[in-house]
């Protein structure tokens, strides 16, 4: 059994590397590293407040903002300039100040209507700002507690690594296990395998382990060459392992329903796109509907975040469901491959 499995593993590994996969991964890795290290900026180079016009006679608010570090480029001189700046930059807002510090009046200009939640949040932030400028302490009515010590903000460039691990490295198995299965169907080698002593488990695991080995080398190289060596590599290897084999099993589950790569491609790509939906929660943390949390990459992304940028969070509540999910995926994969692929008249 072990010898049979190892032979199959070696054969699949050789096939993987004979078909340019090595070069493709190497080029992709180089592109990712160049972008992370040299091109993606460390922090967002945007002004969070937006464009500002002090319409008051004294111009005192503009002075306060200059002193607090707002760049001159964001302090404009007329309502028209504010409207033109907002029209050119949909992410920003325009703020027009009138009156005095004692009786301030703000007009907030948006490109389009915003939700009432966002409107109320902007109002609350401006009220807090004016209360502070007025020397009123409103912070006595509440206290802030942290479950763990606050962590430093993650550098903009390094924040790209968890999504790259989840959506570039781990999905290798999902794509390539399908291609291997189609190739074997087409070449007829799956027929030969059916009459050989090799079991279904050996067939699935040898392929999953090929992509695990490739994924581990690929993922670890990406992390080592960008973040360095000071992190919990044991945990990183565990999650890369669980993630890689889970996606290989899921890839095989989908692939058994198709006959060739052309048929599979659009459905497979569609599923990979659904798998990427959690990246939206990654970008907009307040958007985490229940359905998105059921996608495996949601927990995997959180795990990579915590491993690469630790905050002291307990990882077990994510690892246990991920492990159980991988076992369940294996069982379904086994039943489908055994029932469809190993018995089909192909």
């Amino acid at each position: 059994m072990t010898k049979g499995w190892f032979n199959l593993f070696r054969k699949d590994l050789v096939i993987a590397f004979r078909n340019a996969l090595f070069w493709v991964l190497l080029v992709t890795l180089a592109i990712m590293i160049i972008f992370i290290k040299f091109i993606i900026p460390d922090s967002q180079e945007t002004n969070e407040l937006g464009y500002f016009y002090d319409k008051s006679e004294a111009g005192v608010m503009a002075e306060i903002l200059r002193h607090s570090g707002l760049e001159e480029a964001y302090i404009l001189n007329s309502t028209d300039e504010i409207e033109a700046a907002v029209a050119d930059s949909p992410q920003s807002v325009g703020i027009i100040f009138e009156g005095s510090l004692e009786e301030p009046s703000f007009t907030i200009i948006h490109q389009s209507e915003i939700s009432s939640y966002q409107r109320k949040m902007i109002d609350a932030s401006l009220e807090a700002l004016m209360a502070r400028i007025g020397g009123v302490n409103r912070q006595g009515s509440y206290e802030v507690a942290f479950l763990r010590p606050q962590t430093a903000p993650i550098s903009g460039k390094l924040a790209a690594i968890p999504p790259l691990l989840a959506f570039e490295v781990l999905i290798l198995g999902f794509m390539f296990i399908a291609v291997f299965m189609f190739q074997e169907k087409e070449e007829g080698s799956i027929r030969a395998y059916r009459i050989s002593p090799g079991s279904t488990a050996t067939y699935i695991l040898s392929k999953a382990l090929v992509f695990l080995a490739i994924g581990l080398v690929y993922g670890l190289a990406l992390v080592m060459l960008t973040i360095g060596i000071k992190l919990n590599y044991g945990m990183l290897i565990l999650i890369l392992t669980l993630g890689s084999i889970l996606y290989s099993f899921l890839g095989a589950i989908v692939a058994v329903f198709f006959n060739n790569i052309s048929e599979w491609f659009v459905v497979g790509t569609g599923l990979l796109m659904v798998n990427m939906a959690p990246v939206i929660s990654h970008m907009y943390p307040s958007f985490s509907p229940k359905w998105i949390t059921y996608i495996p990459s949601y927990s995997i992304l959180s795990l990579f975040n915590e491993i690469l940028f630790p905050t002291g969070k307990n990882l077990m509540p994510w690892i246990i469901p991920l492990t159980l999910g991988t076992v369940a995926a294996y069982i379904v994969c086994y039943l489908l491959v055994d029932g469809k692929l190993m018995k089909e008249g192909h």
Partner: protein
Amino acid sequence: MNRILNLIRQDIATALRDNLIIYMLIAPLLIAFGMKLFIPSVEQAGLSFAVADSASHQLVEQLQAYGTVELIKESELQGRVEKTDTIAGIIEKDNRITIIFEGNEPQQLIETYKAVIEEVTSKQSFAEITHRSLGKEGSILNELLTITMLMMAMLIGSIVSGFNIVAERDTKAINAIAVSPLTALQFITARGLLASLAATACAIGTSLIMAGTGINYLQLTVILLLSSLLTTLLALIVGASATNQIGAIAMIKLLTPIYLGLPILAFFLPDRFKYLFYWLPNYWQFQALGNIYFRFPLNVSLWHATLITLGLSGIYILAFSKFAGKKLNLR
């Protein structure tokens, strides 16, 4: 011309037999439809509060104006805050509020939560605030995803055509084509035409779902048709560089981030990095489509971007077709 049409006819017959055209046309539209459904909820998202059930009804009502409120037992509050999503725990006891964070939240978000609590507990207003919209309705997320989906539709068209070439190489059918009167140029034209027409139809459908009828479809059609050389180039890269399905998928794995990922990344980068992408025809294709979908002006006009896409794709296809012709043993 007859030879080209025959090859196209043959490809269509194969695609119809395998239901490929159905998959190709329907799947991006379904994905576009799914995206359209959840984009509004991304953009409308407010703050999330996990409020201990001992809190006053008034506080809960006030917080609901800022986002979603989950009422839970105080003993479960810590566990809820520790879950993956971003949510602040709120405990109200003896007229005093405690805001509980995990510790990994961005400082700006913490400040917003604090401002909200100050606002709901304060009886005093410090400013008169009014909001005004310029009336340029739209959504940057929707616009960006529309362009991404359109480019994906174009990519799928190329890939399916590329797969056809790979299948011909894999089954040695290409050898029969090589000894037929069909030249390399005719072969490339046939493959490119079918891929481009299918991709254009699919992209227009995707646009109708994502952006409705409010854009200029004549301009879009012209951009998509003038992007044909790029679609053909991608199909040719897949078809000529891979001899079997594994090689094809490996090549697609490389092409997808370069074709889709780099223009999107360039969009988010400061202007001083943009020149790094000027050699990519797909960067200009993105800019051309951006002129149609974005509500804000771009640095390059629609027609300039379209013509650069066409020109660059033409140069690359000329350079690559010699290699492709050799690889495919075509005359």
